[in-house]
């Protein structure tokens, strides 16, 4: 009797249809595996990068010539708002979370994130939040208040104004960022718990790879900064739909409340967007220089210092709003302070490649390009902190140059570096290095041609966020140059996409460790199995995989405390 029951069960299993979660598509949709979710974050982020990039090309097409007629002013205002919003909320944050999701558990020797289901929840919220925001174009009512959505322009009606934001435009933005905020909160909580609780034996906090450090700092920044944005958005929604007056001075509110709330999120946000990029670069430079990172402790703790200081500098976005001089002096000082740890990082990176044995594969090229370009973003950022000079160049194209040297010359180059670096781990295949170098040089030329002239436009008095400009103010050549550059960047992106497709189809087999790297994600198969590691590795230094491969000269044998 008993045996026959077992036999019957076996047959039932043989013939039953596959569950949805076992089909190819179903597996992706229902997955809670950090690697699959990481890839989905990366693909989603890249999709929105293309969307935001096309918005950028529309902007540059409109501005290529004076008195441009490609877009009408309302459409232009929607496009530039969505360009900024898309790139920041839907490209950079998802892509960095994607790297974090895929790499961090591997780097620290864990089998998954701490909360796999919450991880999946965060991803789907991001995807649908992003689609929700972009769907506003279908109604012709995309957000049009600029990516910082200043009140009272974003109110339904503002005092004696005839034209605030009477339609849904701002609602899409406010609800969308709130959704994305929830997604980021779940992701950050997950990172914090994963990093604190799931590290492999021996991996003390001061042995964690720097990328993990930076993801940890980023997660804390998100946790503490996002509530401010959510509060600001909810208050504005109350103003818009429930008759509240938080931002309307006529009824005792204050438009500056929005700016304070927004930037107390917005400035940490800027570091949220750059710290993981620092982390990626800090992983790549040592591997391709055949040296350990120089000044590990200083790089890690300068990241933490930046994290704390980033909460004290928000009003440097508001020097022109008429704050008291003493407040402006305070924020000028805190901004000066935050430049110091950033400089320390750059010097440590230089010292890392100094005296090394440098291999110029694509990841290294992009990482070096990152240093070269981020430096410019740091220097013009320091110029913006010089308050009296800031009165002249804030809200001009100089600021546009600054943000793009930081976020494109900085973060985007680091993202590409990361993709070229970890693609072999994701897929088991190498990317085409030659095509990747073309991608680098085209991008490098394109980005300088686009963004460098913007400094000069700002100095020549061109304000940002204008849908057109007259021909007689001396801005024509610079704008034409920037527009040509933007399309060159576009060519670079196409080269990148060709490379991805080509390498997926017919890339060379990469093996588990193509770069002779140092960290644990390379100490497993490419791509890793569901369980990541057959055996959880034991860590004895900051370069566990290096120790394993070169036991004679292992780091842990040389007791160096830096």
């Amino acid at each position: 009797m008993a045996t026959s029951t077992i036999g019957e069960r076996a047959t039932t299993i043989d013939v039953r249809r596959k569950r949805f979660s076992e089909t190819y598509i179903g597996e992706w949709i229902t997955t809670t595996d950090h690697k699959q979710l990481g890839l989905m974050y990366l693909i989603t982020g890249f999709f929105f990068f293309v969307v935001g990039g096309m918005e950028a090309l529309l902007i540059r097409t409109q501005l290529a010539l004076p008195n441009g007629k490609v877009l009408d002013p309302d459409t232009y205002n929607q496009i530039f708002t969505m360009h900024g919003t898309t790139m920041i909320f839907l490209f950079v944050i998802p892509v960095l979370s994607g790297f974090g999701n895929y790499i961090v558990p591997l780097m620290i020797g864990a089998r998954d994130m701490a909360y796999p289901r919450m991880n999946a929840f965060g991803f789907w919220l991001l995807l649908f939040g992003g689609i929700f925001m972009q769907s506003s174009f279908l109604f012709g009512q995309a957000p049009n208040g600029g990516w910082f959505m200043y009140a009272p322009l974003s109110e339904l009606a503002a005092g004696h104004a005839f034209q605030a934001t009477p339609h849904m435009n701002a609602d899409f933005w406010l609800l969308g960022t709130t959704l994305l905020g929830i997604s980021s909160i779940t992701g950050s909580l997950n990172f914090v718990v994963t990093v604190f609780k799931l590290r492999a034996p021996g991996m003390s906090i001061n042995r964690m790879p720097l990328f993990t450090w930076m993801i940890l700092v980023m997660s804390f920044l998100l946790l503490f900064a996002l509530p401010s944005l959510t509060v600001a958005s909810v208050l504005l929604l109350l103003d818009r739909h429930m008759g509240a007056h938080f931002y309307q001075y006529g009824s005792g509110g204050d438009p500056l409340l929005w700016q304070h709330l927004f930037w107390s999120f917005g400035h940490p946000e800027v570091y949220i967007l750059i710290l993981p990029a620092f982390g990626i670069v800090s992983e790549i430079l040592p591997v391709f220089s055949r040296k350990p990172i120089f000044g590990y402790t200083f790089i890690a703790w300068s990241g933490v210092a930046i994290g704390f200081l980033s909460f004290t500098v928000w009003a440097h976005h508001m020097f022109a709003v008429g704050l008291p001089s003493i407040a402006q002096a305070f924020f000028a000082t805190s901004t000066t302070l935050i430049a110091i740890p950033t400089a320390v990082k750059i010097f440590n990176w230089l010292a890392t490649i100094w005296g090394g044995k440098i291999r110029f594969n694509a990841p290294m090229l992009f990482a070096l390009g990152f240093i070269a370009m981020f430096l410019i973003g740091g220097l013009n950022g320091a110029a913006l902190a010089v308050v009296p000079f800031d009165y002249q160049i804030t809200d001009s194209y100089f600021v546009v140059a600054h943000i793009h040297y930081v976020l494109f010359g900085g973060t985007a180059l680091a993202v590409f570096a990361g993709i070229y670096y970890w693609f072999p781990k994701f897929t088991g295949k190498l990317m085409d290095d030659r095509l990747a170098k073309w991608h680098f040089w085209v991008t490098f030329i394109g980005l300088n041609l686009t963004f460098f002239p913007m400094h000069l436009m700002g100095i020549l008095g061109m304000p940002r966020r204008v849908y057109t400009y007259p021909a007689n103010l001396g801005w024509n050549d610079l704008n034409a140059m920037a527009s040509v550059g933007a399309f060159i960047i576009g060519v670079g992106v196409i080269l990148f996409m060709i490379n991805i497709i080509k390498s997926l189809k017919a890339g060379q087999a990469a093996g588990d460790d193509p770069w002779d790297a140092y960290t644990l994600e390379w100490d497993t198969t490419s791509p890793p199995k569901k369980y990541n590691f057959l055996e959880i590795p034991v860590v004895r230094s900051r370069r566990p995989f290096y120790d394993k491969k070169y036991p004679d000269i292992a780091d842990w044998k040389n007791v160096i405390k830096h």
Partner: protein
Amino acid sequence: MRMPVFRRKKHWLAALTGVLLSSILLAACGENSPSILNVAGPVAESESSLFWLILYLALAIFILVEGVLIYSIFKYRERPGTPNPYQNHGNMLLELVWTVIPTVVLFVILFFTIRGLLQVAPEAEPAASASQPKIEVTAVGHQWYWEFYYPKYNVTTADTLEVPVGTTVHVKLFSNNVIHSFWVPSLTGKTDVVPGHDNTKWFVAQKTGLFTGICAEYCGTQHANMRFNVNVVDNSSFMTWISGQQQAAAAPTDALAQKGEALFKNQCASCHGIVGVNVTQFYNTAQECTDLPGGKANGTPQCLIGPNLTHFGSRSLIAGGVLDNNTKDNNCDPNNPNLMQSCNLAKWLKDPQAVKPGNDMAIGALSNAEIQQLIAYLEGLK
């Protein structure tokens, strides 16, 4: 690994630096641009002098860091037979050095920052004296044009701010709608015009001439077309201008302009005021039209939404700075056969939404003859 393409980096950097330096020179002498380096007064002078300090320091750091980077790239590239490098984990002394040096540099900059801040702050505004007189102006940001009110003389104008040379101009900034920002690159950096905040700023113009002003805070659909001129004139011309502006509009004498006036009363008077025609005096928008209790609503005589046109013919810009008021060379002479093509005001009156899409000017379709009458009337309002 050989990388011939890498060799070219040097050339690119040389080319880039060339572009950088030559364009800064171009910028400095760009005649037509509202460049922040074409300074015409002490406030802009303080602000822009810091530019050169920052530029030199930044260039020095740029050359140093990029130099080390490029040197390392060439010097330490992997060559056949390169031994594995020394595994150097760090150096405490070096860390201290490169923490302290940027700190010192940054604090030097901070010193100049705060000094400059105090030079241009509202508290630093010079007191009125015989050698340095002072006038007061209220700049009102509308969507999308600037209105200027001179409280002492009770005069309102738009699009062109008239100021005497060598005089401290105390500017009160007022908006009852969204946030704007007042910026005249040659004279002074930006201060935002925030509803509910009585921001003020000051500047002194030391050269006569016309300087471009710009709204620098995104304020809606036509943010791009919210420019104004600052016309700096000598003292006696200013006083002449003021006394002219204080007058009510002169009644038109020729028949064409009289028809124009009738048309104005019929078509334009619900949004635009002309003293002596549909309003009795100039009003102080910043006092009359606040959102606070007691503030008058849009459309009352105190708060008409369009610019006051009493002395329209004397202005250098129209339509919120989109168009020059090109009255020279008989362009806007009503008898000019090419009036519709040559006169900017004609283009504006024919189709304001084509010139400045989304603006609030809602005017019924006018025939060419009517436009001719309006031009005769408005351009006659000197």
